[in-house]
């Protein structure tokens, strides 16, 4: 398997606080790779380093054979590393269809095109993408009128519109009802299996993590304390210690 994203000794220091401390992470192509850890373990900071929102204070980052540490977020996104946000991040007063069209235009590098019209294929592709995340019926509705679960699905559709080679999902089921969680879980799994997409995601819900992951990396206080298959991680004594009292992991 080829490694799509390779972080070596990645670190981020805020003053004397090491939010992320020497993290090694290798994401293989086509895998669903999850990052777990207690609150404050550094998951979100790690993701912000990967997408270029934050610049690492140490370590290297290679995405598809190219060094990306210190690059601007839009440059990294153009390489194919695209994030769906922890707090659902959509365009409130655009319709769902327009939102996805904007994302497609961005991928086609036509954002600055104020002369020619939309390609005839754009609307069709946008509709297909909405269908694929289960939003086929609500394309004409304003994004801020959609349900929580639908907004999350739209967020994922926006990321998909850029045809990413690696999709980053930061806690995709955070704050969701069991039904919505189930839906997103199915969606992520289907995207990876059906489209051959590589997915890196962080998650609190252990059912989701152990249900669909190929590999799991466990962070604690900014460091990797375990890495491996679901079975490996579940059997790891250090992981159990960190999650002591957490029935989900112990089980």
């Amino acid at each position, binding site marked *: 398997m080829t490694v799509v994203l390779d972080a070596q000794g990645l670190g981020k220091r805020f003053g004397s606080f090491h939010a992320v401390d020497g993290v090694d992470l290798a994401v293989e192509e086509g895998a669903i790779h999850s990052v777990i850890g207690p609150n404050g373990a550094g998951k979100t900071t790690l993701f912000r380093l990967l997408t270029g929102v934050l610049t690492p204070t140490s370590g290297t980052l290679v995405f598809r054979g190219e060094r990306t540490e210190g690059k601007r977020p839009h440059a990294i996104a153009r390489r194919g590393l695209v*994030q769906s946000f922890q707090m659902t991040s959509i365009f409130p007063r655009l*319709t769902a269809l*327009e939102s996805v069209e*904007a994302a497609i235009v961005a*991928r086609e590098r036509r*954002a600055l095109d104020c002369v020619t019209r*939309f390609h005839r294929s754009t609307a069709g592709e946008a509709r297909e993408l909405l269908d694929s995340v289960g939003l086929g019926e609500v394309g004409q509705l304003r994004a801020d009128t959609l349900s929580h679960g639908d907004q999350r699905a739209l967020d994922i559709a926006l990321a998909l519109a*850029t045809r990413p080679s690696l999709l980053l999902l930061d806690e995709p089921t955070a704050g969701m009802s069991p039904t919505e969680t189930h839906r997103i879980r199915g969606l992520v799994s289907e995207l990876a299996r059906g489209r051959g997409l590589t997915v890196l995601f962080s998650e609190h819900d252990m059912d989701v993590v152990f249900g669909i992951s190929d590999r799991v990396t466990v962070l604690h206080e900014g460091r990797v304390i375990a890495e491996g298959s679901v079975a490996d991680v579940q059997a790891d004594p250090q992981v159990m210690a960190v999650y002591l009292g957490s029935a989900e992991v112990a089980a």
Partner: protein
Amino acid sequence: MELADRITARAAGRPRALAGALGVLGLVGGIAALGLLLPVSEALIVEDAVGVSVFALATNLLLGYGGLVSFGQAAFYASGAYLVTLGWRRWDWSFWLALALAPFLGAALALPIGLIALRTRKLYFALLTLAFSQLFFVLAEKQFTFTGGDDGSFVKFWATEPRHGFLLVLAVAAVSALALWWIVSSPFGLVLRATRENRERMEALGVNVFAHQLAAFMISGAFCSVAGVLFVVYSQTSYPTLLQWTTSGEPVIMAVVGGMFAFLGPVIGAFVYTLGHHYLIQHTTHWQLILGAVLLAIVLLRPDGLAGLLQLRRRKA
């Protein structure tokens, strides 16, 4: 299903596009008739409203579509006005040459200002654009020998027949409005609106947001400059007050009053503001009080402005 979708979409789209085109033709024709039928003194007021409509539309590209509040649009407006008067006085330029050059001057001026101001956000952006236009104000006032300073710079035109001037202003305004409509309904316009809604998200999708907003700033500057040229057609002059911050505030007020989320909202605002100003000032010295009250009422009650109130058509923000 997708094919059926497309057919209904096209069927639904066509009559609306046709109705829209007819509506615009009717609007332009109606204004032209007003210009030809009204007494000259009245027609000049309508001409003023048509001219500042372009100013308001161009400013609303930033305000309504981009979510960028610029208080420095006067700099570009005045650049067009001064280009005509100074070009005519100093270099013997024809009006047409000045008209053709104005958008380039406006865009060229917007480039350095945008490069600096767009590095900041919201209030700081508004203050920086304001600072730049005040800088130009001081320059225009102090460079007496070049600009004519406070006395302004007058020009005498070929358009001695005021009706011709009216039709010229209307034609340029209609073409400008059409061009701006073309721009806001392009991929560029969609991304501009999306950036207004969520800047970080658009950046994460791979768009260089800074370059995008800079382009919008330059396009707006270009059309503000054209509006400045139109100002000279009916005023026959340019003066430093054009660069005052109040001049920058006017198109913003017009867009807010008329409705910044409807394409023609700023035009409604321009007419209400200009005609309101003209007729109120004959009856009361407190017209600004009334303007203030109207503005307050709209901001508090109908943020989508008169266009939202009229609900001419349901439009997406």
